[in-house]
C-alpha cells in the first residue's frame, strides 16, 4: 500500500483545479488527483442532483446501501460540487484546510 501524500504547499495545483475542474490538467495536478482518487479514506464521494439545478455531496455505502446524503451544504452547479469534494479531500490527505483566496 502506498500512502497517499499531498504537499500542502502546492496550492497552485488547487487553483488550477478550481479554474478548470474538467478537461486537461497539468501532469502535476493529474498526479495529485490520482492520489486523491486512490485514497481510501475519501474515495467514495458522489454528487446528487436534488432538483432545481441544486446538488449535494454524498458518500457511497458498502453492502448495496443507498448513498448517504450531506444535506447541510447545497451547490448550485456541478463545478461547485466538484470543488467542495476537492477541498474535503485536501483536508483529509494534507491534514489541513485548503487555504486558497
Amino acid at each position: 500500500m502506498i500512502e497517499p501524500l499531498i504537499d500542502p504547499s502546492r496550492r497552485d495545483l488547487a487553483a488550477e483545479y478550481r479554474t478548470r475542474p474538467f478537461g486537461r490538467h497539468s501532469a502535476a495536478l493529474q498526479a495529485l488527483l490520482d492520489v486523491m482518487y486512490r485514497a481510501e479514506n475519501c474515495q467514495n464521494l458522489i454528487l446528487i442532483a436534488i432538483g432545481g439545478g441544486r446538488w449535494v455531496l454524498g458518500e457511497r455505502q458498502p453492502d448495496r446501501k443507498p448513498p448517504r446524503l450531506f444535506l447541510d451544504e447545497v451547490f448550485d452547479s456541478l463545478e461547485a460540487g466538484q470543488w467542495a469534494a476537492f477541498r474535503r479531500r485536501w483536508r483529509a490527505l494534507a491534514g489541513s484546510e485548503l487555504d486558497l483566496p
Partner: protein
Amino acid sequence: MSAIAETPGVIGYVDALTARPGERVTVRVSVLHPARRYRAGLVRLICGETGPKGPGLKEEPIATAIDGEHEGREQYTDAGSYAIVERLPPLGSVEIELLVWPGCLGGRVQILMALGRLRLALDESGAAALLAGDGALSAGRRLREKAWHRVEARYDPATGHGFVSSTPLPGFHADRAGEATGALPAGIVPQGPLLFAAERLAPGRTARHFDGKLEAPRLRSGTVAAAWDFAVGIGTRRIAAVASDALDGVTVNAPKRAVTGSLWDGSVQDWRQKPAHYAAIHFHSDDLYDAGWEESLAFRLPEDLRSGFYAVKLEAPSGPPFHVGFIVSPPPGGSGARLAVLASTMTYLAYANYRRRMTPGPYELSMGALPTVDMTDILLAEHPELGGSTYDVHPDGSGIAHASSRRPLFNMRPTGRFWNFSMDLCLIDWLDAAGIAYDVVSDHDLHEQGAALLAPYRAVLSSSHPEYHTLEMLEALQAYLGGGGRFAYLGGNGFYWRVTADPAHPGMIELRRAEDGTRAWAEAPGEYYHATGEYGGLWRRLGRPPNAVFGVGFIAQGFDASSYYRRTAASRDPRAAFLFAGIEDEIIGDFGAWGDGAAGLEIDCYDAALGSPPHALILASSEGHSNSFLLVNEELLSNRRGVDGTTNARIRADMVFFETPSGGAVFATGSIAFIASLAHRGYDNNVARLLRNAVARFLDPTPFAIPRLS
C-alpha cells in the same frame, strides 16, 4: 443552507418498450407515497434534461384515458431466481442430494432445496444444514466458495431423525467433509411444491434465495425416485426430470443457464458440445425477470399518434415525477416520412437500473469526475429488489448477464443522467426544431422485423450510443445499406457487444461479456456461449467490427469534458462538398450541452486494419482530449504508458463519410456527445448545419457514386 431531497413517490413500467398507434398500453404502478394516490398522463418527449447549456426538458401532454388522479398501492416484487416443481407425489421419509457451488457464503441462510417446511440449506456459517420446521442440523463444516460439493440429507418425519453431509468433489484443495446426525422435530412432512434455490412462503412470495450453482438434484422417498438434469432445457424455462416428465419444473426469474457444471474440465467451451459439462444452473438472489405487478392503468394509443419517444408520467403528491419511457413506432410500412431515427432500446435495456455509480470504489480513476446521480437513482438504490443492470454484479460477484423490461426501468426517462435515452432526445429536439419529418423505430422493432422495417426510409439516423446489437439487427442494417440505404451513425462506442433476445423470456436480453473489451465484469471461463448457442463478446472479436460497416469503431472514453473536431483536407474533397456547404469554420463543435464540445464521452476512430473502407473520407478529427480519456483496453496487448488523451494521437473521434456500392452512403461522427451540440445558439451552429446538410442529401434519392480507387 440545508436541503430537503425527495425521491419519487410512484414508480411503474409498461409491458413493452415499443408500441404502435392504436395499440393498448398496460401500465403497472406501485405507489410508495403514503397518500396512495398519484396522477398519470401520457407525454411525448421532445428534449431531456440537458443542464444549463442546453434547451432543457420539453414534453408535450397527449390526452388519453389515463389522464388524471388515481388510487394505487405499493406492489410487491418477488426478486430472486429459483426453480419449482409444482406437483410431487406424497412423500414420507426422504433422501435428497445435489451438487452445490456456493457463490458467496456466510451471514444468512440460503436454501438449496425446499419441500415445504423441510429444507436443505447453507446456514449462516456457510455449512450445509437440514432445516425441519424450526429445528436445524448443521454439518458443521463451512463449504468453500466457488467450489463444487456434494450435499446430502436424510429425514424421517416419523421419528425426526436427520442426517446431513457435505463432501468436496475431488480437486487439488484439501477441503474436508462435514456431516451430522441428530434429532430434529418430528412430523414435518416433506411436500411439494419442490423449490430449488429458495423457499416459498406463499404463492408469489419466496425467500432465503441461494447465490450459486446447483446441479443434479435427486430425491428418494419410498417408491418415489426423482432426479433432474439441468443440462436438458438450456435456452428454455424447463427443468427436466430424468425419469418422468410429470416431475418437470420451471425456472422463475431467469437464472443463468448454459453455465459450467461440476464435470467441466475446459475441454469444451461450447455447451452444446458436451451438455453434461453444463448441467448446472446459476441462481442469484437478485435475479428479476418479471416483477409481476398487477395492471394499474390501460389505455389505447391514439390512432393518429406520431411515432416518437413517449412516457407515461407518474406523479405522487410530492417528490419528482417518474417517467415510464417507451417508443411509439409508426404504423406498419411507416408514416410516409423518409427518415427514421433508430432508438437504441437494446442499449437502454442493457443499462437499465445501473447501480454501479452508487457502489464504493475508485470511480474517478476511470471516469475523471465524481459520479453523479439524482433522487430517482437514490430511489433505485433503496429498492434492490428491482434488479441491477448488465453493468452490475450479483452478490456472488458474477456479472449480471440478463436485462428484462418487465420491471421499472430507471433510465428510460428524460431526466437524470444525460445519457442514452435522455441524450437521444437532443436529436428529436433538433429534428422538430428543423422541421424535418421522421419516424422513430426501435432496436426491438429491427430485431423482430429485420431490414423490412427500414425499407420505407431513404435514410436512418442512429442514436448517440447504439452499443448493443443482436446478430439479427446487424444483418438488417447491413441489408439496408446493401440495398442503397443511407445511414448516419451519430454516436460513439456503437455496434460493440453482442446480445441475444431470449425466446423463453420475452422482453429479456442476454449478454456474455466474453474475451475482451471495455467492460464492467468479465464472463466466467467456459461461459462465453449464450443460452441461444451464439458466441458472445465484442462484435469486433466476432469478426464484425463496426469500422467495416459504419467507418469507425470504439477507441477511447473519458467522462469529464468534451472537445472539438478540426477539419481535415479531405473535408474539401468534392465528394464531401454537400456536407460542408455553408460551413467555413475549421473547428467544428467547440460547444455543446455535454462537456462543452461535440467530441466526447465515448469516441470512435477510423482504422483500416479493422476494415474501415479505404475510400472513406476522414472529414474531421477531434483533438485536445483530457487526461481522463484512455485508450480502450481491446487496443492494448499489454498494459503500458502513453494511453491518455494528452499523450496518444489515436485518442480522437473521426468524422467519416463514404459511399456504398449500391448508391447509399454512411456518415459517422464517432462521438456520443455530438448530438448534444445540435441546439447550441438556437440550433444555428456548424454541428447542426453539418447534420442538416447530411440529412438533406441522404433524403435525395439520387444514388451516390462510389469513387474509383487509385
